[in-house]
């Protein structure tokens, strides 16, 4: 095994999918420009030709719809949205068409991968920063995967393409430089299976994508304070691994859910509710959410630092949960 970064792993998955299956093509904005895709698609246009790496006009709606139609007609498209914010213009083909299709028209899944990039920070402001995954996990018929490691970045993209679909694959530019061991050969990571990143007994930290990485860092902080946190990286947000999470929390009896999206009706809200329904009798404390505030993304660096939660805030929530029980027992 060798080490790749997250962006290189995404690129390798694309390259292998394009090489292995002549039905695969990529379409979307900015495929020929590193400005849009970072190094995650670098050079693929030269390697596989512009007919299969289709850098498209800025028509998010029709380009996504075209990918749906191409999938129905037997191709395996990966439609690329360099910022998730832009993908809002493609809600109809994603939500009304692709997601409903497999139910409506018997046996007809839509073998489509929709790739959206969360690209926040850097003073880009409210319409270049949004993490909108919760909107899409709400939709029946749509799978949502959000890798946090280089290994999963490759394996989940390959799994998304194999899936009868449609699958929304969301990657995060903040993770592009994260490195990890990634097999050279093609492989898949099962959609719907979470991963335990650290074993622990005092509480469970649950995160996805960037916030899963922050949970691992938070566990390191807590370890130094004598708190032993288990970390679960969901990897797939829809359908998320309820069994693994429930089993972990019923053992640790406390949970913090960390999410890089907004608080109200967010991914963390769904996870917290499900934990409460499943393992309420085992809980020593309420499930705590660490999320963005219910506010648009700010632009200035100073405000961004306050706006985005990270390991410190997750650790602080965890500390509060553990102390709460210590006080209660003392009282």
């Amino acid at each position: 095994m060798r080490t790749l970064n997250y962006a290189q792993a995404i690129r390798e998955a694309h390259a292998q999918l394009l090489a292995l299956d002549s039905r695969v093509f990529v379409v979307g904005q900015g495929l020929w420009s590193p400005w849009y895709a970072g190094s995650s698609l670098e050079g693929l246009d030269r390697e596989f030709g512009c007919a299969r790496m289709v850098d498209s006009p800025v028509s998010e709606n029709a380009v996504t719809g075209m990918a749906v139609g191409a999938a129905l007609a037997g191709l395996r498209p990966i439609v690329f949205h360099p910022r998730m914010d832009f993908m809002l213009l493609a809600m109809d083909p994603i939500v009304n068409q692709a997601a409903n299709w497999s139910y409506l028209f018997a046996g007809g899944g839509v073998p489509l991968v929709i790739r959206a990039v969360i690209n926040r920070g850097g003073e880009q402001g409210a319409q270049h920063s949004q993490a909108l995954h919760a909107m899409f996990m709400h939709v029946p018929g749509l799978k949502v995967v959000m890798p946090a490691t280089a290994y999963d970045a490759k394996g989940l993209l390959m799994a998304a393409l194999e899936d009868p679909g449609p699958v929304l694959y969301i990657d995060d530019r903040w993770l592009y430089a994260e490195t990890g061991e990634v097999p050279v050969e093609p492989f898949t990571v099962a959609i719907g299976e979470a991963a335990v990143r650290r074993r622990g007994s005092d509480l469970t930290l649950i995160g996805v994508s960037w916030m899963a990485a922050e949970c691992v860092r938070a566990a390191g902080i807590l370890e130094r304070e004598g708190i032993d946190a288990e970390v679960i990286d969901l990897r797939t947000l829809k359908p998320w691994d309820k069994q693994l999470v429930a089993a972990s929390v019923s053992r640790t009896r406390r949970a913090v859910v960390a999410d890089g999206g907004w608080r109200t009706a967010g991914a963390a809200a769904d996870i917290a509710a499900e934990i409460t329904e499943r393992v309420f009798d085992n809980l020593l404390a309420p499930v705590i959410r660490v999320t963005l505030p219910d506010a648009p993304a700010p632009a200035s660096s100073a405000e961004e630092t306050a706006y985005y939660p990270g390991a410190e805030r997750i650790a602080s929530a965890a500390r509060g949960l553990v102390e709460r029980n210590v006080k209660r027992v003392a009282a």
Partner: protein
Amino acid sequence: MVLIRRAEERIAEMVESGEVRCPCHLYIGQEAIAAGVCAALRAEDTVWGGHRSHGHYLAKGGSLTGLFGEVLLKSTGCAGGRGGSMHLAATEVGIFGTVPIVAGTVPLAAGAAFAYKMRGEDTVAVAFFGDGALEEGHVHESMNLAALYHLPLVLICENNLYASHMHWSERRVADNLHRAGEFHSVPGERADGNDVGEVYRAARRAIERARKGEGPTLMECRTFRWRGHVGASFDLDVGVERQGELAEWLLRDPLKRLTDQLIERGVGDLALREQAIDLRISGAVAAARCASHPSPAQAEAACAR
């Protein structure tokens, strides 16, 4: 055309009696367009439609039992009874699915055309939509993409003058839909949508052009729907009466124009053929009535796949 007319008249009766409850958008008065276009297509060509697609479905070869099963939401319906009148599919004859989001399938048709082109096939995709659809941005986006990539796509705008309850003059300044593709380099053509021969000839030109790799064409077919936007009633259209206009258009009945021509040419057994069609429709209705509804568990199973 007779099949479409008779089947829809039967559906209209079933809507009026309350037996069919899902929203039905009837095509009566527009039959020459579906019949004329589909007569110029090959079996493997695909057809994409919208909420008013009973005619497209039957003209391309979709089964009557599938149609009646679907409007009654039975498991024998062409979408397994999960969609109703607005969701028709018959993949075996090139209909992947019709949907009621206005022009929702136009980008999908472009995508199918993209697939045919990428595989080097000479198959053609045809998108049917109404005049209101040209007020949707994604139709213009799709025309640009189709022109840019020289896609084998034919865009059929069935201009029945009304989008739901609104006359075109309440929605647009100029009556010029056939020119809507000019900006995107999509050539346009206008045809009398109530003349099946004219529709066929124009469609044939557009389809051959697409098949030869010369790119998309927009066809505007002028017509009028006899019934309301939704439901069976003749004169009342979501609260708007169009009795005066309807009286004029009834005189241009596409079906009567065709049968008159056929009789003129000495085609003699029309009554017999119509009887045979009526018998097929009655059989399809009876079969649909006997069939069961789909199981509710199918929905979750479909999503869990």
